[in-house]
């Protein structure tokens, strides 16, 4: 029954994703596209976090996706929807390599390694101007860019597909292995699960999804440069959205994405400049989220409905 309900929700949201952009004012399509890219990175980050892998390198995947799509589009004039394929493959390949070479690293060390690789990628993008245009960036040919409505529908569909993927992942038997890896990889290994396989698998999946977000942004804005494609802000929002919404849950990243996008729009409305206020709010969310509500908005909602705490996502903080 649950599976049927899941399918209905997924198909319903796909229809909405295809139809809604036609009826909404243009301002919304920008907003919705940003929302879908945010959901993509947040959900993919959450998949890795679910297996105990803290990624601080999601801007690396994003940038890889953005650059591969833009460069391939300019070189071969491939259409938007097709450019997603090589970008995803590259993201997955990079993710798999990252997981493979950092195979011996846990927790903190993995986080730092991902941060370093994404920064290394930024330096490469900056320093190989023959390929990437260097600091001047790359413009995507205007003639082959699709119109806004198509873009918005497409990115919303991708977001729905991503959430569906994480939903099915959370219902599959792999979920148990991944969740157990979060607590102890060696214990998982002792139970006959090969953690390396899951680690590579989940990082590749996460990388592929996060690079999609980069592809969307490259096409939507029509321009990328190393600073914006490998922006640390991407990594920051990728971790804030799941944390705010609810770590390790399917709905958490979606709820969190909507919430932080709304918050950032509000701060932009009230503090009319792009100065530090937006990021300050993000920082406060991180700090208070970790200290006060480690299970996020979804956790609060669940606790409101059921007094019994179910599957405490993050063990309660020590006294």
């Amino acid at each position, binding site marked *: 029954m649950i599976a049927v309900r899941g399918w209905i929700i997924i198909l319903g949201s796909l229809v909405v994703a295809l139809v809604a952009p036609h009826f909404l004012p243009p301002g919304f399509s920008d907003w919705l596209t940003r929302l879908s890219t945010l959901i993509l990175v947040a959900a993919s980050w959450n998949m890795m976090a679910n297996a105990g892998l803290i990624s601080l390198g999601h801007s690396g995947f994003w940038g890889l996706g953005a650059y591969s799509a833009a460069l391939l589009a300019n070189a071969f004039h491939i259409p938007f929807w097709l450019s997603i394929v090589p970008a995803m493959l590259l993201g997955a390949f990079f993710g798999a390599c990252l997981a493979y070479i950092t195979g011996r690293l846990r927790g903190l060390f993995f986080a730092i390694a991902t941060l370093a690789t994404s920064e*290394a990628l930024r330096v490469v993008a900056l320093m190989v101007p023959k390929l990437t245009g260097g600091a001047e960036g790359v413009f995507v040919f205007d003639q082959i860019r699709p119109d806004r409505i198509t873009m918005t529908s497409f990115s919303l569909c991708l977001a729905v597909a991503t959430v569906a993927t994480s939903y099915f992942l959370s219902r599959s038997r792999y979920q148990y292995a991944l969740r157990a890896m979060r607590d102890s990889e060696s214990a998982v290994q002792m139970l006959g699960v090969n953690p390396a396989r899951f680690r590579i698998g989940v990082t590749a999946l996460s990388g592929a999804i996060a690079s999609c977000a980069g592809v969307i942004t490259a096409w939507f804005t029509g321009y990328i440069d190393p600073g914006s494609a490998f922006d640390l802000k991407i990594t920051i929002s990728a971790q804030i959205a799941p944390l705010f919404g609810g770590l390790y849950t399917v709905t958490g990243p979606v709820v969190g994405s909507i919430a932080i996008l709304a918050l950032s729009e509000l701060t932009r409305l009230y503090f009319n400049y792009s100065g530090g206020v937006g990021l300050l709010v993000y920082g406060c969310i991180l700090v208070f989220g970790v200290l006060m509500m480690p299970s996020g908005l979804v956790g609060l909602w669940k606790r409101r409905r059921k007094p019994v705490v179910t599957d405490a996502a993050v063990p309660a903080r020590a006294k």
Partner: protein
Amino acid sequence: MASLIFQIVVDSLLLGGVYTLMAVGLSLAFGVTRIINFAHGDIVMYGAYAAFFAFVSLNIDPLLSLLFVAILGAIGGYLLFKLTLDRILDAPGINQVLLTFGLGLVLQNVAVILWTGDERSTTPSYAFDSWFLSDDIVVAKGRLIAFGLAVAFVVLLLAWLRWSELGRATRAVSQNRAAASLMGINVRAMYALSFGLSSSFGTATGAIMSFLLPITPFMGFPILVKAFAIIILGGLDSIVGTVIGAFLLATAETTIAYVVPQGIGWAEGVAFFLLVIVLIVRPTGILGTVGRDA
């Protein structure tokens, strides 16, 4: 050619001093608490701003204000630890990463709001001075001072760790939390102390950076990443390892900046490449003992 090599050696040594300053606080805090402080770069930034305002409004030399800035940093770091990290010490590592990352964001953007993104710097006379050892070998005086202070700081820190009562307790906690606790050491108090000390190193570093680098709210992140690379190179919990790591990174960067075409741009990336390579080849670093499971 000989003078080029000599210049590279001189520059590497001087830069190594600067890098030692950046990393030693982070290394101390990690060695004791096993928490990587992602806000360390921003603490350095606050030290730099404190030194800047002391220089501009009170006309105090950064090398003099260093003392006060370090004391303020110690108090600030202690409070920061007590208010935030102390409450989630037993939570999974991901929470600590996210928390210190968030703290860094807050610190950085408060600075953006207060002081905008404009570049500032203190301008004591020695900041622009340099000595010519021969016709083509230059020693920048500001960096030489930073080098000297780095040596002094490290010697002081090592001496404190080795001979003082609190230093011994700090080392005990770093080596074995449970055993130290059984010996009657208040582990949490040592955590807070080492965190305060680490912040005090951070802000003191900032005061020195105030005449070496442009001061902006964004100066913290590059410093943080460099410091990561250094302490991972050297071994996370070893102060001596940190010094070695700092000089290794400095040598690699300087050599590439001089030898490779467009080397200055590439040198920015050296830290990341070295970091990834070390993490893969020897995750414990050159002198470190912390396994990869930390």
